[in-house]
C-alpha cells in the first residue's frame, strides 16, 4: 500500500523529500559530497580505497555505508571496525567515493524507482569488480545486499561485522585475551539484524568476549527487541506524535543500570545516543557505542594495563574513546 501511495500518487511524507533528493543527486541520503566518503580513513594508511574499474584483489570488500562514511558518530564505528580488521590481519578495501547508498530507505518508504536507480549501478560495479564477499557494519546495507540485490541479479556473500568479529574471536585470529572492561553493558537488537535476519547471538558473543564485563538484557530483547525509531526510512522523518521511540528505548536501556549500551547498527547508534543524551546522561556516565567500539576500547584498555604492569608505578589513565 505504501508502494502504491509513493509510486502511483507521489504521496509520501514531505520530510522524505530531502533524503530522496540526497540519494538521487549525491548518492547518499545525507546529501553530503560523495568526495568526502573516504575521509574517515584519512589518517589510517592501511585502508585501501580501491578503484571500481579494476578487479578486487582483497578477499573482502568492506561496504562502509552512508552512515559510516558521513555521520560523525558512525565514523568512529567505521574506524573501530577497520582497526579491528587490521588487527586480525584482514586487508581493508573500501570503495570510497564510488560507493553509493544501497537504497534501503527508498525501498522501505515505497520509492522502488529510486531504489532501482541506486541498486542497479551498485550491482554493475560490484559485478564488474568480481566482488564475492562483502563486509558491512550496517544491518540495512546487510539486508539489502544479501536479501534484495539477488532480485536484481546481484549475488554476494555478505557478512555483518558482528558475525565476522565473532568468527575472528572464535578462530583466535583477533586477539581479545587482554580485552577488559569492568563495566555493565546492555545490547540493543537491531531489527534488520535480529528479526529480519535472525542474528541475535553474534553481537552478544562479541561483547561477551570482553573480560570483566557484565552483560545485562533489557526486558524487550531478542525476537521481542524494541525498535530504535529509525527503521523503514523513519530515520529521515521527524516524530511529532506521542513519545519518541528512541526516548522510550533509551529509558529502557538506562533502567538496566548499564554504563555502556551496545548497538550493531548505525541508525540504532544515532537514535539511542540521542535518546540517552536527551535523558540527561552524558558520555562519562553512559557510553553508547557500536559493539566494535566497545571491543576496541576493551582491547586497548587491556594493552594499557599490560604496559602498566610492566611499569607498576604509573598512574592509571581514564579510558579514551575508540577511534579518537
Amino acid at each position: 500500500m505504501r508502494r502504491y501511495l509513493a509510486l502511483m500518487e507521489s504521496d509520501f511524507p514531505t520530510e522524505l523529500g530531502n533524503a530522496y533528493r540526497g540519494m538521487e543527486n549525491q548518492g547518499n541520503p545525507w546529501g553530503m559530497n560523495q568526495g568526502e566518503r573516504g575521509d574517515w580513513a584519512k589518517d589510517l594508511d592501511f585502508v585501501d580505497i580501491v578503484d571500481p574499474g579494476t578487479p578486487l584483489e582483497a578477499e573482502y570488500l568492506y561496504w562502509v555505508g552512508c552512515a559510516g562514511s558521513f555521520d560523525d558518530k558512525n565514523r568512529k564505528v567505521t574506524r573501530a571496525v577497520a582497526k579491528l580488521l587490521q588487527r586480525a590481519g584482514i586487508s581493508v578495501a573500501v570503495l570510497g567515493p564510488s560507493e553509493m547508498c544501497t537504497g534501503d530507505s527508498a525501498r522501505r518508504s515505497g520509492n522502488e524507482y529510486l531504489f532501482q536507480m541506486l541498486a542497479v549501478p551498485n550491482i554493475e560495479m560490484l559485478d564488474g569488480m568480481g566482488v564475492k564477499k562483502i563486509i558491512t557494519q550496517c544491518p540495512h546495507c546487510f539486508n539489502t545486499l544479501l536479501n534484495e540485490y539477488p532480485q536484481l541479479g546481484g549475488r554476494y556473500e555478505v557478512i555483518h561485522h558482528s558475525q565476522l568479529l565473532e568468527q575472528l574471536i572464535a578462530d583466535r585470529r583477533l586477539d581479545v585475551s587482554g580485552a577488559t572492561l569492568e563495566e555493565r553493558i546492555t545490547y540493543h537488537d537491531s531489527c534488520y539484524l535480529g528479526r529480519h535476519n535472525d542474528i541475535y547471538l553474534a553481537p552478544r558473543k562479541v561483547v561477551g568476549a570482553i573480560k570483566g564485563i557484565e552483560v545485562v538484557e533489557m526486558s524487550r530483547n531478542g525476537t521481542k527487541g524494541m525498535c530504535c525509531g529509525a527503521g523503514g526510512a523513519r530515520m529521515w522523518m521527524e516524530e511529532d506524535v506521542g513519545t519518541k521511540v528512541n526516548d522510550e528505548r533509551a529509558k529502557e536501556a538506562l533502567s538496566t543500570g548499564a554504563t555502556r549500551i551496545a548497538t550493531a547498527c548505525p541508525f540504532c547508534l544515532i537514535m539511542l545516543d540521542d535518546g540517552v543524551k536527551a535523558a540527561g546522561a552524558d558520555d562519562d556516565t553512559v557510553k553508547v557505542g557500536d559493539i566494535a567500539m566497545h571491543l576496541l576500547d576493551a582491547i586497548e584498555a587491556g594493552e594499557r594495563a599490560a604496559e602498566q604492569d610492566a611499569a607498576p608505578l604509573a598512574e592509571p589513565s581514564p579510558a579514551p574513546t575508540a577511534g579518537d
Partner: protein
Amino acid sequence: MSTDAEPVEPSGGNGTSRVRPHHLAIGLGIAFAVGTAVSGILPLILDWHSDSAIQREVFENVPGPLQLAFYTIIPVLLVWGAFAFAARMRNWERGSPAPRRTTRKNASRRLRDFRAGVYMRTLLRDSAAGLMHSMIYFGFLVLLGVTTVLEIDHQLPEDLKFLHGRTYQAYAMVGDAAGLVFLGGIAWAILRRYVQRPYRIRIKSKPEHAVILGVFGAIGLTGFGAEAFRIALRTAEGDSMDFERWSFVGYPLSTLVDGWSESTLTSVHQWWWIGHVVAFVAFLVILPITMLRHMFTSPLNMYLCDKERPKGAMKPMPNLMETELESFGASVVEDFTWKQLLDTDACTMCGRCTSVCPAHATGKSLDPREIVLKTGEVMAATGDPVVSPPIGTDAEITVSANSLFERASRRRSSGRARPARRAMRSARSTSRSSTRSSTCAATSR
C-alpha cells in the same frame, strides 16, 4: 506488493469449468453432511444392538421425531456452512497469484509450520493465554473424539461393538475429564477477557467474543446436564448405575436429583438434551461467520507460511524503467495475493501484533491489527456474494468500493468509488500531484 503477474480472472467469469479451491470446501461439506445423514439412517435399517449392561444407549430417552430433526438439521447446517466458507474462499481467489505450492523441497518445512500451527506454538509464547487456549482446544478435540467414537461404535455390528464394560468406563472418564478441562478453559477465557483484561484484549473486544464463549460454555454445561439426568433417569427406572461412577462428574451430579419422579426426570433430561443439541447447532452457525473460523484458517495460514523469499526482503518488483505495467503497489483488494487475503480471514483479533508495535506503544495512530482487519472488511464487503467481515464491525461503517484506502488511511475517504483496476488506472493520470504526508497506512476511526 507487486502486480507483475497477470491479474486473476474475475471470479464467476467466462464460465470456466476448472475446479477452484472453494469447490473443495463445498465438496467436503457435502461429504460430511451425507456421512452424517447416512449414520442416522443406517442404524434404523440394520438395528444392531449391544446387550451389555455396562454401556450407553445412543439417543436414550430421545423420541423419534427429535432424532429425525437432529439428523435433518445437522446435515443441512453442514452444507450451509460449507457454502458460507466457500463464499469466503472465493474472496481469496480474487487475489493475485502467490507461489505457495507444496514441493518436495519445502514439504518438511510446511509440515513443521503446520505442526507449529496445530500445537499453537506462537500462542504459547504467552503462557497464560497459551494454557487457557490449550484447555479449550484440547478439551474440544477430545470431546469431538469422544462423540466420534460413540458414533463409530453405534454403526458397528454387534460383535464388533467395543464400547461396553471397562472400555466404556474408561471412555466415560476421559469424556468427563475433557469436559472439565474444556469448561475450565472457557471459564478462564471469560475471566481473562472480562475481568483481568490484559491490554491487547482490553483495547478491542467485540460482542461476538461473548457469543462464542457463551456457545462453548453452553455446550459444556448442557453436556454435563444431559449426562447427569440420563444417569438419574436410569437409576429411577431401577437400573443399577454403579458402573457410571467412572463418569466422575456426571454421576455425582445425578445423585443430586435422587428421588425425583421418573416422569419429571424424563422430560428434564429431554430438555437438557435439546439444549445440548441447540448449543451445538449454534456452534455450527457461528463457525463460518465469526472468528471461530480460525479453526480452519489458522492452520492453513501456518501451513502456507513458508516462502522462497527471505523474510528480510520485500517483494520483488519489475524493472520500472522497462516494465509495461501501469499500476504498482496495492490499493484494491485484487492487488493483494490470495495468501494475504486468506490471512485476513485467519485473524482472530488477538492483538499480539499491536501489543508489540513500537509506533502503537509510543502513541502513534498506527494499529497493525486494524490494517489486517480492515483489509478483510473491504474484501468481505465487496465480495460476490458479500460475506460477513472477519470480525464484526459497527453497523454504521459501510464499504462502497474495493479500494483499501476506503478504510485504512489517515485521510478520510472522499467516497469516490473505484470499482475496478481499470478505473483505477485511468484515475492515476489525473491524481498524481498529491503530496500529503502520512506516517503509514495508519488509521483513525
